[in-house]
C-alpha cells in the first residue's frame, strides 16, 4: 500500500475528527441560541461576545469535572458505553463524501475517507451499532430510569432501522449502487434530477426515521427529561457524559449529510457552487432538528411504535413495491 495514501487517509481522519468534534460543540451553541430566539429569550450571553465562548467554558467544565463511577454499576460496560456512541458516530462518517474532490498544488484530494462500494449500507450499519451506547450504558447504570431508557432505545433504534432501510431501498433501486458517490453522481444533472422529486415518500420517511435514529425531539424518548431524567446519561458525569453528547450531535450532522446526498442532490456536479449548496442543505437539516425541538411536543413510546409499525412501515413497503412496478414497465 502506498505510503502517501496512508498519510492522506490519516490526515483526513484527523481533520474529520477535529472538525466534527468542534461542530458538535458549536452545534450545542446554535441549539441554545435558536431555541432561545424561538422562545423570545437571549440564550448564552456572558462568556465571550454573544456567548460564543460558552462552548469553551462547557468544554473546560466537562474535561475537568470528576469522572464519577457509581458503586453498583457494571464498571467495564459503564465505562465503555459512551465510547461506543462517540466512536460509532465518527466511524459512520468514513463513507460520507463531505465535499467534492478538489485539487491542491496539483494533488487531487477526495474528501471521503473510504469510497467503498457499499457506502450507504456501511453508514446505516455503523449507526445501528451506535444503539449499543445507550443500551449498554443504560443497563449498566444500576438506575431504573437508565434501564427504561435502555429498553426504549433498543425498541426505537431497531424499529426505525426498518424504516430507514426500506425508505432507502426505493432510491437505491433507481440508482443501482450503494456508494454515496454514485448516488450523488446520479443526481449531478441539477435540481430536476434530485431523487426527492421521484421518491418524495421515501424522503419523508427517511427524514422521520432520522429523528428516531438520532433521538431528537418528537422522538426524544431515550432521554426524556421530564419522565426519565436524562435516561441512559443519568449516572454519567464529566467527559463520559460529554462523549454521549458529542456522539449525538455528530450523528445529527452525519445524518443531515446522508439526507442531503441521497435525496437532495448532494454536491451536484462537483463545482464549488455545488459544494456550498451541500453545506447549505446540511445546515438546513441541522436547523430543522433544532426547529422541531422548539415547536413540537414529544410523543409517547407506544405512539412511536404505532407510528413505526402500523403507519410508516406499510407505506415504506408500498413505496418499494410501487417503485419496482414503475421500474419494471
Amino acid at each position, binding site marked *: 500500500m502506498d505510503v502517501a495514501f496512508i498519510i492522506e487517509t490519516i490526515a483526513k481522519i484527523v481533520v474529520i475528527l477535529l472538525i466534527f468534534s468542534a461542530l458538535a460543540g458549536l452545534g450545542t451553541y446554535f441549539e441554545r441560541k435558536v431555541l432561545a*430566539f*424561538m*422562545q*423570545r*429569550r*437571549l440564550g448564552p*450571553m456572558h462568556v465571550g461576545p454573544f456567548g460564543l465562548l460558552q462552548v469553551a467554558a462547557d468544554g473546560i467544565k466537562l474535561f475537568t469535572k470528576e469522572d464519577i463511577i457509581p458503586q453498583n454499576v457494571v464498571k467495564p460496560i459503564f465505562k465503555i458505553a459512551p465510547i461506543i456512541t462517540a466512536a460509532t458516530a465518527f466511524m459512520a462518517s468514513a463513507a460520507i463524501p463531505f465535499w467534492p474532490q478538489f485539487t491542491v498544488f496539483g494533488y487531487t484530494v477526495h474528501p471521503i475517507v473510504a469510497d467503498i462500494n457499499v457506502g450507504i449500507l456501511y453508514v446505516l450499519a455503523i449507526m445501528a451499532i451506535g444503539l449499543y451506547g445507550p443500551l449498554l450504558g443504560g443497563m449498566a447504570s444500576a438506575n431504573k430510569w437508565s434501564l427504561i431508557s435502555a429498553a426504549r432505545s433498543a425498541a426505537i433504534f431497531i424499529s426505525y432501522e426498518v424504516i430507514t432501510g426500506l425508505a432507502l431501498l426505493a432510491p437505491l433501486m433507481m440508482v443501482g449502487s450503494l456508494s454515496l458517490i454514485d448516488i450523488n453522481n446520479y443526481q449531478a444533472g441539477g435540481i430536476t434530477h434530485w431523487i426527492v422529486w421521484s421518491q418524495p415518500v421515501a424522503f419523508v420517511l427517511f427524514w422521520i426515521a432520522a429523528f428516531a435514529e438520532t433521538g431528537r425531539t418528537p422522538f426524544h424518548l431515550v432521554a426524556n427529561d421530564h419522565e426519565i431524567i436524562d435516561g441512559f446519561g443519568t449516572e454519567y458525569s464529566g467527559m463520559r457524559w460529554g462523549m454521549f453528547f458529542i456522539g449525538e450531535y455528530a450523528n445529527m450532522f452525519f445524518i443531515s449529510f446522508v439526507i442531503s446526498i441521497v435525496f437532495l442532490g448532494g454536491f451536484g456536479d462537483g463545482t464549488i457552487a455545488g459544494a456550498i449548496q451541500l453545506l447549505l442543505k446540511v445546515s438546513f437539516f441541522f436547523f430543522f432538528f433544532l*426547529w422541531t425541538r422548539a*415547536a*413540537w411536543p414529544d410523543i409517547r413510546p407506544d405512539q412511536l411504535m404505532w407510528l413505526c409499525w402500523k403507519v410508516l412501515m406499510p407505506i415504506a413497503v408500498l413505496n418499494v413495491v410501487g417503485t419496482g412496478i414503475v421500474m419494471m414497465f
Partner: protein
Amino acid sequence: MHHEEVFTDRNVSESSAYYYVDIENYPTTGWDKFKQVVKRTFSGELFVGLWVVLREMIKFDIHTVQYPLEKLPIGPRYRAVHKLLRLWESGYERCIGCGLCEKICISDCIRMDTRIDENSRKEVTEYSINLGRCIFCGYCAEVCPELAIVHGQRYENASEQRAHFVIKDDMLTPLDMLKAGEQAEYPGFGAIIPGSDASVKKTPLAY
C-alpha cells in the same frame, strides 16, 4: 432591549373569557379511527407550530431582561429598604427621636437611642433597623411625623453578615448627595398629599 409591554385585557368576564371546548367523542370503529388519523396527519397543525416559533425568531422580540445590567422599573411607592432623610435647608437629620416608629413596629425590629445635646435639642445617637426581621409593612414610614424615615427603592439586600442589615449610615442620605439635590421625597405611605398646604389651617392664636 427592554420595553414596556402593553397587555390586552386579560380580566375574566362572563361574556368573553370562558367557553366550553367542543370535544368530539373518540372514534370507536376502525374506519373512524383511520379517518381521524388521516385528518390529523394532513391538517398541517405541525406546520402551524413550526411557523409560530419561526415567526417569533424572525420578529426577534426578545423579552429577556439581563438583570444585573438592566432592571425592570419598580413603582414609586415600592416598599424596599428604608431611607433616613435630611432636612433640605440645614442638612440636619429629620428624625426628632420621638420613638413612634420604634413603638409601632410590629416585628419589633427598630431600636433607637436618644439624648439631649448641649443645645437642649434631642439627638438620635443610635438608630437601627434589623432588616433581617423587618417585614416591610410601611407602618414606620406612615407614622413618622417628620417624613424622616421612608421606604427606598433598594431591593437587593443580600449580605454576608446579618449585622450589615442594621447600619444607620447606609440608610441616611449622605451629605454630598443632599447638596447635589439627589434626595428624593417619598410619594408612598405617610407622605404629604399633593396640594396639602391649602388644607392646613393656621393655629387660631386669637383665642
